[in-house]
């Protein structure tokens, strides 16, 4: 298929019409005219011949030889006259002989026929005195001149038609092709993502309607996209809120413990002081003082613990505007593993999972955004808990009580990176969906239980915010292990 642009098609159409018309005007029409002219002329000459013959006949009948001359003179004035001759036909021999010619003494060739330069017509007459023919020959100059005129006229008309055709072509091109091309370009740009494209749509015809419909559609598209983005942002926010909410239960538990110690050791210390006041034994007093010292130390320690948990929670809720700070990865992992564990226990009392922590010593501080990294760890741990819980549930349904859920979290230093691995012994990820798990909104949880955003957010945090990597390894009915890589 040859690709013809709209403009080419329009021009092609217009020019075809013009060319056909030109052909008609330049060739066919003149030809027809000429033929008609010639035919008419022939008839006219014949008529003239007939007229002269009649005149001659009358004259001869009246035995008026002058009348003969008058009759033949009838055509003398005609400009086109070549000659007119009276041929006498001998009634007995049939021979023709010239009786008279105008102009005089014109030798008429026998059996003259019409040719290009003259028309020869014969009219017969018969009288008792004489029988003969009038031979009339008229020149074709007038016709030739007419022919020329027709030619020039048709050429001129052809030219006019051409100009008009070109003009119409331009108009059509402008009014059809230009808006259509503008529409095409705008549509391409919209397809590429620009939702602000609008086309001129003033004309009242279908092209204008198309333009207006297009503009309306693009505006609607822009609105729909803005809504979708806003809805997506909402979902992402709700995912973060959900993760925060899950943490809260764990945090409450986490804080309760240190606070218990603060309270208990404080009240114990008050009692001890009372005892100290009352005591008289030096050994005893020494013991009490030791205990008091130890207690106050523990109170300080647990107080700080509670404090850091609150700080962690605040950090986590602070959203994404985080800057990188030197972070102790082991400490972060440990802290959030505990948080995740308690959070999980708070929401699913029946489920318990073994946690195995395997942190390599001496890992240097890593430039990281703690509240974001912690989000990733929480997400992976919670996913791991969910997977293990699901496997346990299925096992219980089929009567298997042997299965022991376990989460393993390890940190290690390798080749200028810190590697964090989180492994669960759940049912694993089927090969078919392994590629999809990092996609936004992809989830295998029942409706309402998961936004499907956890892994995709985590992936972005690892790759975009920390220039690290995140990958998964899994074997069905065996394990799933996520590997996080952080550059040192």
């Amino acid at each position, binding site marked *: 298929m040859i690709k013809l642009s709209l403009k080419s098609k329009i021009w092609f159409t217009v020019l075809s019409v013009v060319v056909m018309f030109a052909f008609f005007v330049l060739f066919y029409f003149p030809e027809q005219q000429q033929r008609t002219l010639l035919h008419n002329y022939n008839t006219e000459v014949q008529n003239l011949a007939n007229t002269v013959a009649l005149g001659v006949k009358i004259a001869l009948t009246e035995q008026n030889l002058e009348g003969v001359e008058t009759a033949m003179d009838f055509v003398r004035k005609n400009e086109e006259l070549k000659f007119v001759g009276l041929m006498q036909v001998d009634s007995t021999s049939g021979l023709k002989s010239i009786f008279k010619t105008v102009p005089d003494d014109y030798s008429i060739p026998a059996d003259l026929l019409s040719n290009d330069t003259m028309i020869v017509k014969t009219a017969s007459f018969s009288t008792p005195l004489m029988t003969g023919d009038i031979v009339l020959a008229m020149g074709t100059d007038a016709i030739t001149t007419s022919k020329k005129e027709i030619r020039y006229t048709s050429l001129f008309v052809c030219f006019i038609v051409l100009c008009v055709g070109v003009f119409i072509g331009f108009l059509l091109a402008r009014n059809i092709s230009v808006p259509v091309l503008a529409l095409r370009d705008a549509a391409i740009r919209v397809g590429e993502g620009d939702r602000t494209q609008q086309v001129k749509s003033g004309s009242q015809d279908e092209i204008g309607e198309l333009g207006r419909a297009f503009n309306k559609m693009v505006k609607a598209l822009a609105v729909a996209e803005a809504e979708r983005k806003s809805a997506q942002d909402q979902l992402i926010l709700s995912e973060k809120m959900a993760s925060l909410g899950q943490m809260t239960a764990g945090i409450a538990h986490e804080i309760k413990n240190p*606070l*218990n*110690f603060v*309270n208990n050791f404080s009240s*114990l210390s008050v009692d001890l002081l009372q005892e100290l006041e009352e005591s008289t034994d030096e050994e005893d007093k020494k013991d009490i003082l030791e205990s008091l010292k130890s*207690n106050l130390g*523990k109170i300080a320690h647990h107080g700080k613990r509670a404090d850091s948990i609150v700080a962690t929670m605040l950090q986590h809720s602070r959203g994404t505007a985080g800057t990188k700070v030197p972070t102790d990865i082991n400490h972060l992992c440990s802290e959030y593993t505990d948080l995740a564990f308690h959070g999980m226990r708070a929401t699913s*009392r029946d489920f318990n999972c073994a946690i195995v922590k395997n942190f390599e010593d001496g890992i240097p501080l890593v430039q990281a955004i703690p509240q974001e990294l912690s989000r990733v760890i929480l997400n992976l741990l919670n996913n791991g808990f969910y997977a293990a819980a699901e496997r346990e549930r299925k096992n219980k349904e089929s009567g298997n009580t042997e299965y022991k859920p376990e989460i393993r979290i390890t940190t290690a230093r390798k080749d200028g990176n810190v590697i964090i691995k989180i492994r669960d012994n759940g049912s694993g990820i089927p090969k078919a969906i392994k590629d999809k798990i990092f996609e936004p909104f992809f989830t295998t949880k029942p409706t309402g239980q998961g936004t499907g955003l956890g892994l995709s957010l985590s992936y972005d945090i690892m790759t975009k915010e920390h220039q690290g990597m995140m990958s998964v390894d899994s074997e069905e009915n065996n394990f799933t292990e996520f590997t996080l890589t952080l550059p040192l």
Partner: protein
Amino acid sequence: MATKLLVVDDELDVKDLFLQRFRKEIKAGKFSFVFAHSGEEALELLSHVQPMDIVLILSDINMPGMTGFDLLQQVKEKLPALKVFMVSAYGDAANMNRAKETGADGFIEKPVNFQLLEEKISEALENA
């Protein structure tokens, strides 16, 4: 004769807490305490120490690895004579019921009200 109690909790400071809180009783020979920091450690202890030595176990519920409930179940299977109290921060009905169903002899909420604990211990031992 001192009542020997086994306290099972993953928090290390629980030991000091009990030792201080009950130092008078310990001094007076009323109570003596053994401590384990996990269910597994507790079972280990129980298998070595003369079982009749320990009369009461105070176990935290939420521990990594073997939970208090798992420990409770195992103790009730192997050493049914031992009394077990569950101690937990989550003092809701579901937990308490589960403790009861699994055979716990008592339930103490954290933060531990030691007064109440003492009373419950006495009560439990009287009914032995």
